[in-house]
């Protein structure tokens, strides 16, 4: 049971949240101009990095805010994301 640092509510158990996956997965500005390969990469592929990953979490059973954290997928150590992500 991870302890997720919600920027609004503070540290809460992971079962109050939903993990939204890698924040690097950003919807293309103009999907129509992507190639099939680029679109497929956006839709299905992930970096799935072993180590620190910046990812989205949703505090669904709390303030209902989406936010990003940096989580180590090996140690599970978590830091609030060091800088704003657009």
């Amino acid at each position, binding site marked *: *049971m*991870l*302890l997720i640092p919600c920027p609004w509510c503070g540290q809460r158990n992971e079962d109050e949240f*939903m993990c*939204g996956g890698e*924040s690097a997965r*950003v*919807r293309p500005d*103009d*999907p*129509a101009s*992507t190639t*099939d390969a680029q*679109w*497929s990469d956006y*839709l*299905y592929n992930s970096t799935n990095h072993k180590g620190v990953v910046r990812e*989205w979490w*949703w505090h*669904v059973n709390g303030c*209902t*805010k*989406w936010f990003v954290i940096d989580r180590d997928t090996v*140690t*599970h150590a*978590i830091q609030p994301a060091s800088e704003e992500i657009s």
Partner: protein
Amino acid sequence: MSRLSSGGAIDRRQVINFRFNGTSYTGFKGDTLASALLANGVRVVGRSFKYHRPRGVVSCGIEETNALVQLRSDLDQPNIRATVLPLVEGLEAESINCWPSVNFDVGAINGWLAPLFPAGFYYKTFMAKPWDFYSRFIRRVAGLGQVPKVADTNSYERVHHHVDVLVIGAGPAGLSTTLAVARTGARVLLIDDQSDPGGDLLFDTAIIDQKPALEWVKESIETLAQLDNVSRLQNTIATGYYDHNLVIAVQTSPDESWIRERLWHIRAKQVVVATGAVERPMVFANNDRPGVMLCASVAGYITRFGVQPGKRCVLFTNNSRAYEYLSVLQEAGIKVVEIVDCRESVDDDSLKIAQLLNIPVVAGSHVVNVSGKKMVRSVTVRSINGDANLHTVSCDLVCHSGGWNPLVHLQSHSGAKPVYDSENVTFIPGKPIQSERSVGASNGRFLLSQCITDGLETGQKIGVELGYEFPEISFEKQTNDVNYAVEGFWAEDDNTGKAFVDYQNDVTRADLALAMRENFQSIEHIKRYTTAGMATDQGKMGNPNVIGIVAQMSGTSMTATGTTTYRPPFQPVSFGVIGGMERGALIIPARTTPITEWNISHGAAMNEAGANFRRPFYYPKSGESMQDAMNREALATRNGCAIYDATPLGKFELHGEDVPELLNRVYTNSFSDLPIGQGRFGLMLREDGRLMDDGVTFRIDDNHYLMSCGTGAAPVVLGHMERLLQTEWQDLKVYLINVSAGWANVCVCGPLAREVLSGAGMDRELLDSMKFMQIKTTKVAGFDVRVARVSYTGELSFEINVRRRDGLQLWELFMQAGKQHDITPIGSETSGVLRIEKGFVSPGIEGDNITNPYDAGLGWVIDMNKPDFIGKRSLQRDLNIGGERQHVVGLLPDDHNAKIADGSALVPVQAPTSGNPEFQGHVTAACYSPTLERTIALALLKNGKNRHGENIRISGLEGSFTATVTKPVFYDPRGEKMRA
């Protein structure tokens, strides 16, 4: 009897009666089952797993591997450690894994066949026939105890708790830590697995500052009891250490009498592991004979329980600590005839003790065999280098001590890796990964004085780290222990018998050698091949011996050999307490509407409707079959009037100037021009172009919309939009508010719907004027309602939304008003029939994560001219390179009464029904349509859109039918009825 005439922390005035293997015995309050059995002279308490060798009690704590019993009567439970089982009146226990009795066990024949059963023998044989043939026999002899015969009537509880500092273990180190941290004012919780604090001091005769150590314990506890910031739990064992400093602990018999066990989820800023150490056995031939016991445990039985486990003893050791117990043994009248010490040069402290007690020390030697089967009769001793000193000593007790194993398990759960401490010949905690510290014996500090100092110093550091002031305290405590000196000893012996490294799984030194001979090199491999360390004690005693022997045989270091990973739990945990109270109705919530109770009391058959709602399936009248009920309900809807509870549908308010833009982006069609008071059907896709949900969104006011969606899809849809708004489209000004439960939604439908509603007092003019997809606010019988004209049945249909609190009244009002029209409540199974007749695609059924809206015949809802919407790019991909697709089609079976199961497969009409015919698709939903008086079905069929009119075979387990492929709509194809 082996009970001493005095001594021990037992209450001799309270006699306790118990039964073991059918014989009645007595013990005293304060006994464990093991101490009471030893006191009664019971030596053989169980049989081993593989060879069924007689086994006796070997330890006095949680590390016990042999004395496992099955409890009977009310307490029925398998595999209970007798060494930690408090004796209670009427307790009934049996040995496990033996038949017909522990003293005469047929399975012992395995002992004779043992040469055929080396480690991993089963990988090499039993291949002539299928394994099932052999496994029937093998399974029967495997396993330990039996599943309880009586139902568990106990209550369990699960709680969450937060502290600044959690100290695990109330032995000298844990107590000292707690004393130190407590002074800072930090919130401290001290948990301990025994009924009384003190840890090993309970089994010891140690002295602290010239007083018995237990007095220091008592004083410490009294000090802690004064402090508000300290709490303490006895009978509470930490079983696992998880991410982010979460420790799970099990408390037995808490104060609340109705609770048997409580599972604590303890989140701590700092965790202190003070779980102590356990004594390690020596590995020698027949080291498993009853009467071969760990040295400190023998002393423990004497000190704590006043039990004398033998009369004539040989001590076999490699360390100084064992000598400290000699005086306890001697004072209890046990004659220690000889000390066999495998160290060439025994340390002076040890020699002094032996001299004082006048016990001969045979140094540089080892025990090479034990004779006696159900009880030790003698041991054979020989010098390590050669045959010098070869002699036999008669005895009925062998105390052995191979050094001490810190209980690094919890630390290991936390992600840390134990490291080898060559001085102490053992594995000690490695660098902490979480906010954790190990103290005392679990940190490799085996002396009492070290434990106390380590605890106090650690407590101080933690206090400072947590930002508290720390008062000066003295760390000096005078204790009576001597320096700990140990040498690793895993020499090969004479091969005179089985030398066990894992008692419970019957793993011997020879098994380890065989594994290595066959080129199993990794310690994990050796563990798995031999099963060493995989028994219910999980190698607490034996693992370092396995590592030592493997290192020695392979000529590498202990460090290079490494440990296997310790997995939680530290001690086995009952499933009852893991589950807590979440049984029956509490396992997952059952969500209700204001009409749920009415439905149940009116005999509705209930079924899951998604998102944990239960809804009426159908409403059988007395004696009516399911099919008859559905037919009646469906016909009422088509020809008269019906009513159903649509409350579980999702309802979201959308506010803000950018709502139309949001809708344009999440729906496939356009919402730019929706007038106030009007609704529009919308189709929502996932980004991969697959169906997510469909529903109607109404415009209530300028910047105010109301979206409805499917019951099961509601949380998904809300999450989908909330995510997009907060991550991708932060510039859109939209607020989403879930109001799903705030409104009761009663749907009245059928050609007579207007009659019913106006009969209930609704404005007839308004009803007549309302067009399909309109929403109006009005009053019925004093209730403010929102009326929406939408249809999921294909009939004229009104959804009446009212505040939840008034839902049931409104429902009953309509039922009353509809009586003269024979208003009929309908269930979801009937709704299913109506939707199949209409060919309404269900995103959760026809939309099977593969179907796209074109496949589903929903192309008319898609506006590909919009610049973008979620899923658009993927639809383009499907059109460009998606190849042949499966389409939603209708099926008309030639047999009008065909009973077709949902999920039946579709194959070419000529094909055989099994054995690789060409798979063409499957039936998604089939029913008997009472309106059409025939069976109809919706299906997903490869290229189905272009195959209308073809014949196909429906292949189901129950039968096979030919059918004609049609358009997926069987009733009112133009939708005239619902627009009427």
